[in-house]
């Protein structure tokens, strides 16, 4: 049987061409341009070596702060989305009549554009006219009202909470898929052996949903590193750079015409994302190989 007649390699031409020209090529270019002083003010692009990266990694600089904010944002949102997502999944795995409706509701924000979510919460968090402060006032907690997006103490926490609000449903769905692979008989056997709720969770649920956990971990980290729309709409990186992250810096530098620095930020993001994702992934495969 002639493989190349049955399954022609020409079928790969279109997807490869589109993908290489519009994704890989720009990515490769970025490694070169991140080493230059490319900008709008002059036509000449000069090679400057690692100068852009030296600027980004200079301790105490604003740029270093952006990197720091990105990591903080990614880590905290990853933790919150995982914990809440798992809790929801366990509660919604069985029983209640309204399970399906609730699942639909919790997943709804995942489907809405982050731009729109950002616009909605810029109103909800508004210091004077926002729903959140009005609600706190109504509860008699008027002292707790804050300028959520403008106060340096709360801006980061606010954007983190919106990001978590949006993606909890995604984590829930992945955990639900994981939970559904666990056979009921495990729990029954454990109950007979006298294991309590916590014991069953720790000895059965937790080990068996490890794959779902790793997936959520990787995807949440990647999405956390890449965050842009929400922060761009909610705080524009402010107040005073407290919520400025890598992808907003890419845009700021781009808008100021400093293309070289913008590209260098992009490269840092590229490396951060791929290295973290691949090393977590290889950790997973090594683990499952050890078990097999």
């Amino acid at each position, binding site marked *: 049987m002639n493989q190349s007649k049955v399954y022609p390699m020409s079928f*790969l031409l279109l997807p490869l061409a589109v993908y290489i020209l519009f994704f890989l090529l*720009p990515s490769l270019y970025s490694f070169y341009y991140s080493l230059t002083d490319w900008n709008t003010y002059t036509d000449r692009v000069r090679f400057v070596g690692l100068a852009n990266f030296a600027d980004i990694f200079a301790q105490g600089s604003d740029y270093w702060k952006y990197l720091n904010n990105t990591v903080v944002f990614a880590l905290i949102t990853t933790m919150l989305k995982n914990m809440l997502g798992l809790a929801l999944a366990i509660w919604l795995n069985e029983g209640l009549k309204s399970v399906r409706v609730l699942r639909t509701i919790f997943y709804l924000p995942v489907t809405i554009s982050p731009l729109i979510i950002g616009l909605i919460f810029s109103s909800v968090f508004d210091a004077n006219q926002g*729903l959140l402060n009005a609600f706190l006032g109504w509860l008699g907690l008027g002292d707790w009202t804050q300028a959520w997006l403008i106060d340096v103490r709360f801006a980061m926490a606010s954007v983190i909470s919106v990001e978590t609000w949006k993606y909890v449903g995604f984590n829930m769905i992945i955990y639900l898929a994981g939970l559904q692979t666990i056979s009921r008989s495990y729990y029954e056997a454990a109950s007979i052996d006298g294991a309590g709720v916590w014991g069953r969770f720790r000895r059965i649920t937790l080990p068996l949903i490890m794959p779902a956990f790793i997936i959520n971990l990787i995807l949440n980290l990647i999405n956390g590193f890449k965050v842009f729309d929400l922060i761009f709409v909610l705080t524009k990186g402010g107040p005073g750079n407290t919520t400025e992250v890598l992808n907003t810096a890419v845009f700021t530098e781009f808008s100021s015409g400093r293309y070289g620095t913008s590209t260098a930020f992009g490269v840092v993001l590229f490396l951060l994302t791929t290295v973290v994702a691949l090393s977590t992934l290889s950790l997973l495969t090594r683990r499952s190989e050890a078990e097999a």
Partner: protein
Amino acid sequence: MKTIRSLLLWLLALTILIPLALVVLNSFKTQMESVSMNLRLPGKFQFDNYATVIREGHMMRAFLNSLIIAAGTVLLANVSAAMGAYVLARRKSRLNRWIYYLFIVGLIAPINYVTTIKVMQTFHVINTFPGIILLYSALMIPFTVFLFYGFVSSVPLELDEAAIIDGCTGWRLFARIQVPLMMPVAATAVLINFMNAWNEFVLPLYVFNRSTANPMTLAVYNFYGTYMSSWNLVCAAIVLTTLPIVIVYLFGQRYIVSGVIAGAIKG
């Protein structure tokens, strides 16, 4: 215990529903009523808000633009990814394994906006519909290849072999045997790609500076910039962009969720 759990879950569900209800309610209010964004019912439902938004925000145009971009992307990304994934899954040579890994890189790595613009300028497709469709497709091909690859791998080879004996190969084998089987996974891919294309905001922000080609997201953002003090109108604009997505989600939920899970678990 069950009632407490149910109560708690519905309370959490309210934190999702209330911000969304807030937008819908305020989209029917007068400008004065919407100064303080609250959950009170509008005194009189102002359906005119929608007409104003559509007129002032050039939403018809933007809606059409989004539709063109999303439809073009869905078509290009799905047809090309289905063909590519099919050959990758059926001919597992060393080269094909590497091509597959090459696609997977695109699942993880973020794009570089500035050099992307440069490349699009070089190809003279910047600010054009074909350009943005090619770019969106490039970004969605990895996930779509991945989804189809997983599916084709699960289809028994015997099906192909029976057809091959009857002299059915190449394009005919793909179109007659695989494509009909692919329909459920294609539905998933179409829905997810459509939603992603419709919701995309960052790329238009970087790549588009021709207002007549603006998609909905950019139109809403620009509208917000101009009408920041009229939240009733901003809310109406938000409803207009989001409604198609919510409808697609509610009707295609089964396909979307199964695709998200398949995409994540095998990744």
